[in-house]
């Protein structure tokens, strides 16, 4: 009887140990989903996504309304296509909204800032799978410095 108890605990110990290993391998080292609330998908094309990553947050005025679900390259035009998962509680994003890649702090992670557009007659709302047309690419520091030096030379 005691021997069976020992065997049970040793078996459990080994299983939990391997479970910890696989958690580390798949959750910490590779991709995996953490939170799963209901979302719908929007898409957007950028010229340059900078350091944006899958699962980066999408914010409206600082409030997280969704996450980046995937980043692909358009096979025809060779521009990055970002797929956004927006929480279903934030419906009714106008078609005129604009999306820009921003950086949290000087050294921080990059995130997507969503600027809701105006709603007038004839402007609809974005539905699942729609493309956001108005996008602003990431600021790349080297390009900024290059532009700055170039404008200095003009003077």
């Amino acid at each position: 009887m005691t021997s069976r108890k020992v065997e049970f605990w040793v078996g459990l110990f080994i299983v939990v140990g391997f479970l910890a290993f696989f958690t580390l391998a798949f959750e910490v080292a590779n991709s995996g989903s953490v939170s799963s609330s209901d979302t719908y998908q929007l898409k957007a094309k950028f010229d340059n996504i900078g350091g944006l990553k899958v699962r980066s947050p999408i914010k409206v005025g600082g409030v997280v309304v969704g996450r980046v679900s995937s980043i692909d390259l358009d096979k025809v035009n060779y521009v990055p296509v970002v797929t956004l998962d927006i929480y279903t509680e934030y419906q009714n994003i106008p078609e005129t909204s604009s999306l820009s890649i921003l950086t949290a702090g000087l050294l921080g992670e990059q995130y997507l800032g969503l600027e809701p557009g105006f709603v007038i007659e004839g402007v609809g709302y974005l539905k699942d799978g729609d493309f956001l047309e108005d996008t602003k690419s990431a600021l790349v520091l080297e390009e900024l410095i290059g532009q700055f030096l170039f404008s200095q030379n003009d003077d």
Partner: protein
Amino acid sequence: MITQIGRTAISQVVTLGRAALMLFGAIFAAPNFAKSIPLVIRQIYVVGVQSLAIIIVSGLFIGMVLALQGYTILIDYGAENSLGPMVALSLLRELGPVVTALLFAGRAGSALTAEIGLMKATEQITSMEMMAVDPLRRIVAPRFWAGFYSMPLLAFMFSAVGIYGGHLVGVEWLGVDEGSFWSVMQANVDLSADIMNGFIKSVVFAIVVTWIAIFRGYDCIPTSEGISKATTQTVVHSSLAVLGLDFLLTVLMFGE
């Protein structure tokens, strides 16, 4: 004076030789699986399962403290999104294997030494030899393998629980963004470079700590004073060996 140094050196080398002979005797003794596997399982229970509580509680608290301390520094640079990789990398590369080895030496190593030492003091080992039972195979080998298998598993649990503790403090309490915490962590943690190197470290520490613990017990002076001295030596020597080897392994793995 010089004679004294020579005598100490010779006795040290002789001790090392005896320890190596004992280890080789235990590892390469012709195994009898039907008999030895139940013994190993029994020892994994004593050495591994009963160390679970201390490992999990310390892992949780170390992860939480790492997140809290890291946050107060990183927030000054607006880089609190790097909290995830900071917690994960320090646990996987260093604290997981090292702290597990230190706790293991204190929790299980000292117990191994005292147990084997008392067996020797009460002449159980001698009587086994009289009955033609090899004490290396019957007592030393199962304990060695139990430590060898248990400690890497314990180190993985320590790291996993510690990262969860870091998540608790960083995300739930201090309000670091959850997606950034995990996605930046996943972008920075590498399976082979970080997790596997941590695993190699914990295997090396497992061998060293169990070896020292068993040998100190097997080689102790069979009196109550001798056992207490051997137990102290186990904890001191294995802690020093773990910290020294950790530096060496870190230089080799992450040096350049």
